[in-house]
């Protein structure tokens, strides 16, 4: 035990002190913050401004109606998630629908004198196809707003033509907002979107950390083989101790990194969450979810890192290791692909079987726990299977490790590997 502790310490301190660890740990939150904040900032800069739009219509009344709809205050729905003020529309009505006028407007858009023009002629309406010409084609939010405004204005006008009063038409056309609420132990919990986003974020974090540190274990085994330090170490510690020290030490580095990120995320998200609240509702991760994350992180890490350690001891160079690491990655990547299906039907038998498969479990069972809270026996069964798998893999890995680390030269073939397992006994 004393030896394992010394090995863990070395593994941990050497890594945490390294420049690359410090840089990666600090850059990641900066990158994440940047990827959230910068688009939000750009959105904010765009949204507050004026939108100069020309509406070309044979019927000026219809154009005015669209203008009104655009300027009307909109109810906050979950979809119009937006920080910052809504844009101010400056609408100009144009009844000239000749081709020459269209060319002139095209020019104005190109020059930036107007943001765009709407081709709302009677012909267009008869074809049920209206065109909005703009340079800012990617602005989905604005085109959504325009579509809604046109649809409402046109429908209202048609209803009025059928003899309905303006107030009646308004009442008919008031949109319904759908809020999804998740039931947790008979109580209303956070919204479905929140759960999805939380699950997604946690699973991605798990995936990232398990892969990064699993691979890191592999690389350090390869490095020890290459630097030929192993024999020195083996004269005072056993291969098992060496493997345990490595896996636990590297795992502790991973935990440290997550901890730093969580602290950053909490600091950063206090202002961030306040603005996000408007569309996400209350973001809170249930404590059970946190516990599940911790358990599945540890088990997932142990599972994959012992597999990677075994791979590392079979190969001689980083290059070979990279070729061999792909097969080991497939299950976890597959699990990420399957995640969506499991989120959609978390209680289906397929989801159950997939989620108790030990190589998928760290991702898929975690997702199920976050989304639906499966029965306790399923969670217990899954954890038991994982623990057993981890134990088996560790035993196997330490045998391969014991022989493999002293073997230099050619990579073993499968029958050779079987023989290694026999020697180690």
């Amino acid at each position: 035990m004393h030896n394992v502790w010394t090995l863990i310490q070395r593994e941990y301190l050497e890594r945490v002190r390294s420049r690359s660890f410090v840089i990666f740990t600090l850059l990641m939150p900066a990158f994440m913050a940047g990827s959230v904040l910068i688009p939000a900032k750009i959105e904010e800069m765009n949204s507050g401004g004026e939108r100069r739009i020309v509406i070309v219509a044979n019927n000026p009344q219809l154009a005015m109606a669209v203008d009104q709809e655009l300027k009307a205050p909109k109810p906050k729905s979950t979809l119009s998630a937006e920080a910052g003020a809504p844009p101010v529309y400056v609408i100009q009505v144009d009844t000239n629908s000749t081709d020459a006028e269209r060319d002139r407007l095209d020019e104005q858009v190109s020059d930036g004198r107007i943001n765009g023009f709407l081709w709302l002629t009677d012909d267009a309406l008869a074809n049920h196809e209206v065109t909005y010409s703009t340079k800012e084609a990617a602005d989905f939010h604005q085109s959504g707003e325009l579509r809604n405004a046109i649809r409402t204005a046109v429908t209202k006008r048609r209803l009025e033509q059928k003899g309905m009063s303006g107030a009646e038409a308004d009442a008919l056309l008031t949109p319904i907002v759908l809020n999804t609420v998740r039931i947790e132990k008979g109580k209303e919990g956070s919204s479905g979107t929140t759960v999805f986003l939380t699950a997604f974020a946690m699973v991605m974090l798990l995936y990232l950390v398990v892969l990064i540190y699993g691979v890191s274990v592999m690389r350090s085994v390869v490095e020890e083989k290459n630097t030929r330090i192993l024999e020195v170490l083996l004269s005072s510690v056993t291969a098992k101790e060496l493997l345990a020290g490595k896996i636990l030490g590297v795992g502790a580095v991973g935990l440290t990194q997550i901890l730093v990120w969580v602290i950053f995320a909490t600091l950063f998200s206090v202002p961030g969450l306040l603005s996000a609240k408007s569309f996400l509702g209350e973001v809170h991760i249930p404590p059970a979810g946190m516990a599940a994350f911790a358990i599945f992180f540890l088990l997932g890490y142990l599972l994959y890192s012992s597999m990677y350690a075994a791979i590392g001891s079979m190969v001689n160079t980083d290059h070979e290791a990279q070729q061999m690491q792909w097969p080991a990655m497939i299950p976890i990547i597959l699990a990420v692909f399957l995640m969506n299906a499991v989120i959609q039907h978390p209680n289906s038998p397929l989801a159950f079987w997939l989620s108790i498969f030990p190589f998928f479990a760290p991702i898929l069972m975690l997702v199920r726990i976050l989304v639906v809270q499966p029965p306790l026996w399923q969670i217990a069964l899954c954890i038991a299977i994982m623990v057993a798998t981890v134990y088996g893999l560790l035993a196997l890995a330490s045998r391969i490790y014991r022989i493999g680390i002293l073997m230099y030269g050619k990579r073993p073939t499968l029958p050779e590997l079987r023989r290694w397992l026999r020697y180690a006994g």
Partner: protein
Amino acid sequence: MADVVELRGIRKSYDHFVAVDNLSLAIRAGGVYGLLGPNGAGKTSTIRMMIGITMPDEGEVRLFGEPFHRGLLHRVGYLPEERGLYKRMKVLDHLVFLGRLHNLSEQEARKRSLAWCERMQISDWTHKKVEELSKGMQQKIQFVAALLHDPELVIMDEPFAGLDPANSVMLKDVLIELKRAGKTILFSTHRMDQVERLCDAICLIDHGHAILEGDLKKIKASYGKNHVQMQYEGDPRLENCDLVESFNNYGNYVELRLKPGADAQQLLRMAVDHARISRFELLEPSLEEIFIDQVGKHA
């Protein structure tokens, strides 16, 4: 007193290749023991079994009079043939780490590391990273690492390989110092001159077998003084003489081996007839000759 290392009929095979076969040897306390043999003879395999890195398929390994168990390893210092250090670790941190794996406290490991670094003239480098050091200096660090916990038995696999003459001398001095302090030293090599100068006892291994084992002086004595070194002017015409078994001309002098039962005085008389003899010396065979003789016999 019990032997420090005793191997009883050990055997190790990998697949169909037998690395060590029915090898027995005993190493007495307080001497320098040489494990000799051509490349691929099984020296490293034998050493690995002595310190439990691999287990023999058959036979028994005993250390300090007890059957092998890992608890005994803290009394052993080991320098493997495949040497290496963590490249990015600082020298002192590295030594302390290795010392701690041998049950030293951090303080004690630090104190001893610094003292050893001074002795090996690498004090200025203790705060550098291993990768910044020259190969020779890295080797010195590894010697220090093997000796840090003051082991009773020091096992070194090809310790002189790759050392420049100055460092070789330094290592030799350290080994002699350890011997004086009553430690037991075992080293493997294929260089006979080192064994001849340093060792009290040897084991000559070839193809996994021990073909000669025991006290160096006794081994040499058993061969008798049947070797002649001579210097002369002229041609003594001894090459095809029926007293001589083998003849080796080194340029400045010749060395020849007498046939069993041949009389050295008769040889001298024959030589005097043809040449002016300036030196005629009767010798024990050199280890190199014994080695070639033995390996030849068993080939």
